[in-house]
């Protein structure tokens, strides 16, 4: 479908038609988005010096856009809806047109909502001219294969996003990473788990989303049989995954890294490398033997599954799979690093540039495998033998060369213009795991204005990650230098992966005016507000975006939407449930307990609250309570000797909620009728992978305890005892 016509010598034109489609990656038919009928989107190829003209036809029922990731282009062609253009409306088309002024491996994707997760990603290859003085013989003339990595989930991305905000643990259950108390005890880590909850942390993982399949060029497994023994191949790898980092390994030996984010680097031989979300790496691999195909393996950081492509012909030489992570070791380390006030302590280690991966404590291939069960079954002699071998392979893995940013070195000096003003900016990357709020300096995009910079000046940015997860920070329209100790040969990148507690410094020359997005490229973090906009002072108006003020408000709203959460327990003694709308700061919720008769009573509580502080442990609120219960004149006294009949009560209240260690919420409330109530509650204590325990006790002498077994994403079986309604058993539906 893509038409490739040269109107003049160097105009290269593509027609892209975006449509809804049905795919089946996992055994279930699901909605996805295809471009020219395919996933990934077609590979677009240009040569430096060409003029690109890309016509996008939107046949979806929603607006869309395409962003050219890593490209230098006029701001209006950058493809960010409500920042550089209006969304391409359904059944309309839009033409992007810009000169190609660089070379390298890049990619393109939708910048609208979560469309990227549904299939809107593709390779974008800008070829170097052979006459280019930087043309590297033996590298730039090798056969090249673009590979785009991605993931697929059967759950709708919008729903994934909502579940993350609601701290749903369904995704963890699917991954087998609940890290419950019983699992902790089994692993001998009960204290670790206790310490973790003591510091008010929920179990965490290196990544959050459960994926059904991982893909290379849209396939879980594929083969390039055109290659033979002795061939050298340049793999142009882009990570088009929405939230997955991938480990890249090769069964045929070491890989030579020759470029990163579309910029050449001095060749580096490595055993493995991790490619951050939205990064690109060019690696050269060799097929070492005749008549054998070698596996190039992409393993997501959580190591749940993998995707492979086989290079060559004949029997396939596999690469060993990366062993499962030791989560409780990670938890233990996290406990050590976490202060009681929710900030992180790097213990005086000056961490930067991926040099020290704290996750290493979770890697069995490095720390040795604890599972020696297999060995125990064997007799002594065999056991000795086995031990010998395992120590042997352990020592060899210690010498594995893993790429980090400090190793990257540009082939030519990359220094910025001298004698221009320097603007220094600092950002602290912040986050709240429990409520899935991701921010910079504890502010989401909707709480900040654009950051003004001047054309011509050098912008130096110091980034410090004080959140618990790594973030691939991406700058639109510019490459920045990563100050990594290589002096004037500092590598150029447009995505910087920054691990927890790291501090990195980047700098760039502000040389193209416009409004440029600077954000975390993990799609769900971006949509949770981890964004900023760099705006050039006194820039020319953008013809595609007449009302920029209004558009910025729209952009801010995009990443601070309200999320619905609802639950109802249909139990033998009544209905018990809640519905809640929340965004990064506000919470609007109603809870109810409805009996089946007047004696059991009916009661609802509604709260409108605002989360305060970085950790969001504190939420003051106003509330409205209504209850009716036929008590036949019997009145009750609370702990403060205040008497109430629960008969018929409608009051407004003022209260606050605070999360205590062990994730117990303390709620204090004063009602308009003078009554006071304090309440302790903890929900979702993970007993086992799927079993949850909850309890509540308050000064009205009410109490409740409940067990819930999670059956599916939306269904649980629960049993509870409630001081008002007695013992009940039922089914819990949740959304």
């Amino acid at each position, binding site marked *: 479908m893509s038409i490739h016509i040269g109107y003049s010598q160097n105009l290269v034109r593509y027609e892209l038609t975006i449509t809804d489609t049905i795919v089946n990656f996992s055994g279930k038919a699901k909605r996805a988005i295809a471009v020219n009928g395919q996933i990934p989107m077609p590979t677009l190829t240009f040569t430096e010096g060409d003029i690109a003209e890309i016509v996008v036809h939107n046949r979806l029922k929603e607006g869309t856009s395409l962003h050219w990731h890593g490209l230098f282009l006029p701001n209006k062609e950058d493809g960010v809806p409500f920042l550089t253009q209006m969304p391409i409306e359904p059944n309309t088309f839009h033409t992007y047109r810009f000169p190609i002024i660089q070379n390298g491996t890049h990619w393109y994707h939708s910048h609208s909502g979560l469309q990227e997760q549904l299939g809107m990603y593709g390779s974008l290859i800008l070829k170097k001219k052979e006459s280019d003085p930087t043309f590297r013989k033996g590298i730039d003339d090798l056969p090249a294969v673009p590979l785009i990595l991605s993931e697929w989930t059967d759950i709708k991305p919008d729903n994934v996003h909502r579940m993350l905000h609601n701290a749903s643990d369904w995704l963890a259950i699917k991954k087998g990473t609940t890290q419950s108390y019983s699992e902790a005890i089994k692993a001998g880590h009960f204290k670790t788990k206790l310490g973790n909850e003591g510091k008010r942390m929920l179990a965490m993982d290196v990544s959050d989303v459960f994926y059904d399949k991982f893909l290379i060029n849209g396939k879980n497994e594929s083969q390039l049989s055109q290659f033979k023994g002795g061939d050298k191949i340049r793999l142009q790898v882009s990570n088009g995954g929405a939230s997955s980092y991938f480990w890249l390994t090769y069964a045929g030996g070491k890989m030579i890294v020759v470029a990163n984010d579309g910029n050449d680097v001095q060749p580096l031989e490595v055993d493995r490398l991790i490619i951050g979300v939205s990064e690109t790496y060019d690696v050269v691999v060799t097929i070492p033997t005749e008549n054998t195909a070698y596996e190039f393996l992409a393993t997501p950081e959580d190591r749940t599954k993998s995707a492979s492509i086989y290079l060559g012909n004949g029997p*396939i030489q596999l690469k060993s799979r990366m062993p499962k992570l030791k989560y409780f070791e990670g938890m233990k380390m996290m406990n050590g690093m976490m202060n009681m006030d929710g900030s992180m302590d790097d213990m005086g280690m000056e961490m930067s540039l991926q040099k020290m991966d704290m996750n290493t404590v979770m890697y069995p291939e490095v720390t040795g495998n604890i599972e020696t069960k297999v060995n125990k079954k064997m007799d002594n002699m065999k056991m000795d033998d086995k031990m010998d071998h395992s120590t042997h392979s352990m020592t060899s893995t210690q010498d594995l060369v893993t790429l980090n940013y400090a190793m990257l070195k540009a082939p030519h000096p990359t220094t910025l213009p001298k004698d221009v003003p320097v603007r220094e900016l600092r950002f602290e990357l912040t986050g709240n795991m429990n409520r899935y709020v991701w921010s910079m300096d504890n502010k989401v995009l909707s709480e900040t204005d654009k950051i003004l910079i001047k054309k011509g000046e050098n912008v130096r940015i110091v980034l410090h990650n004080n959140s618990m997860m790594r973030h691939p920070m991406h700058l639109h329209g510019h490459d920045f230098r990563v100050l990594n100790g290589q002096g004037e040969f500092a590598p150029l990148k447009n995505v910087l992966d920054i691990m927890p507690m790291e501090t990195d410094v980047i700098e760039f020359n502000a040389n193209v005016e416009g409004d440029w997005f600077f954000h975390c490229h993990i799609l769900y973090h971006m949509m949770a507000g981890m964004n900023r906009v760099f705006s050039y002072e006194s820039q020319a108006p953008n013809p595609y975006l007449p009302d920029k003020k209004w558009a910025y408000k729209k952009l801010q709203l995009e990443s601070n939407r309200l999320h619905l959460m609802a639950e109802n327990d249909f139990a033998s003694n009544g209905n018990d449930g809640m519905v809640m709308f929340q965004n990064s700061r506000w919470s609007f919720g109603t809870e109810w307990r409805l009996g089946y008769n007047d004696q059991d009573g009916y009661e609802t509580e509604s709260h409108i609250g605002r989360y305060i502080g970085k950790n969001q442990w504190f939420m003051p609120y106003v509330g409205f309570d209504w209850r009716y219960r036929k008590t036949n004149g019997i009145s009750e006294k609370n702990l403060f000797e205040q008497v109430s009949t629960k008969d018929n009560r409608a009051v407004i209240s003022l209260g606050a909620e605070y999360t205590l260690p062990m994730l117990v919420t303390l709620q204090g409330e004063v009602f308009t009728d003078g009554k006071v109530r304090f309440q302790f509650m903890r929900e979702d204590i993970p007993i086992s992978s799927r079993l949850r325990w909850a309890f509540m006790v308050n000064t009205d002498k009410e109490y409740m305890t409940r067990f819930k077994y999670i059956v599916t994403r939306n269904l649980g079986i629960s049993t509870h005892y409630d001081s008002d309604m007695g013992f009940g058993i039922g089914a819990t539906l949740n959304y």
Partner: protein
Amino acid sequence: MNNNIKILTAIAVFLSVVACIAQTKNTKTESVKIYGNCEMCKNAIEKAGYSKKEATVNWDKNTKEATISYDSLKTSKKEILKRIALAGYDSDSFLAPDDTYSTLASCCQYERVEKKAAITEESKMEMASIEHSKHDAMAETKQEVNQLSKVFEGYFVIKDALVKTDGAITSTNAKSLLKAINEVQMDKLPMDVHMAWMKFLNALKKDTENISKTQDVEKQRESFKLLSKNIYEILKVSKTSEPVFYQYCPMQDANWLSKEETIKNPYYGSQMLSCGKTIETIK
């Protein structure tokens, strides 16, 4: 009521018949060669190939032939053979990763078909460079001036063993270090080095002995902290021909010496291999 039960039974019987037919319709059985040796291999191969309700494998250790039966709608021969190869057993379509093969019990290490190396430009060049490095190694052995260099060498091999978290080797190395310490002829040391040596000799002996006495790496590391400190004091005075890096691990609040600048932490080993920083370069 009775009627209902009859109808239900009839439906149940009907359904199970349908299910049986469906199952036989999709089940495929094939014979395929898988390399292996013994009864242990048989268990491993069959376990790796098995998948609940999808695939079963029956391997004959004499013929090396496996009979695999699988539901062709749910899985494939390729998938089964891939799983088996990932457990360490080659077939004609998939080869096991070398590191997995090497962890098989010795009785299971069947003979593998050797792959024919492809000839590339690099392979020729590599041969040449290997020759080179041999020469370099020979040149190095000639220079050994400093009397204490044996002691320092002894220290570095202990450190390397601790980096690998190997208690047994650490202990053996400590014994050699102790011997080297005892062999030092104090009177032949330069004056300032002599003074430093005298000052720390007893502590050196004691810590080295403590390391050699146990195979418990954690205990060894405790003694190693003190040993490192004292070696540093001596090395600062005596100097060596090559630069030595004095490194620090904030998590343990402890130092160590290394000949390479890259951090390889002896207090954590692989668990936090790269934790630490160089605080002084002694030249």
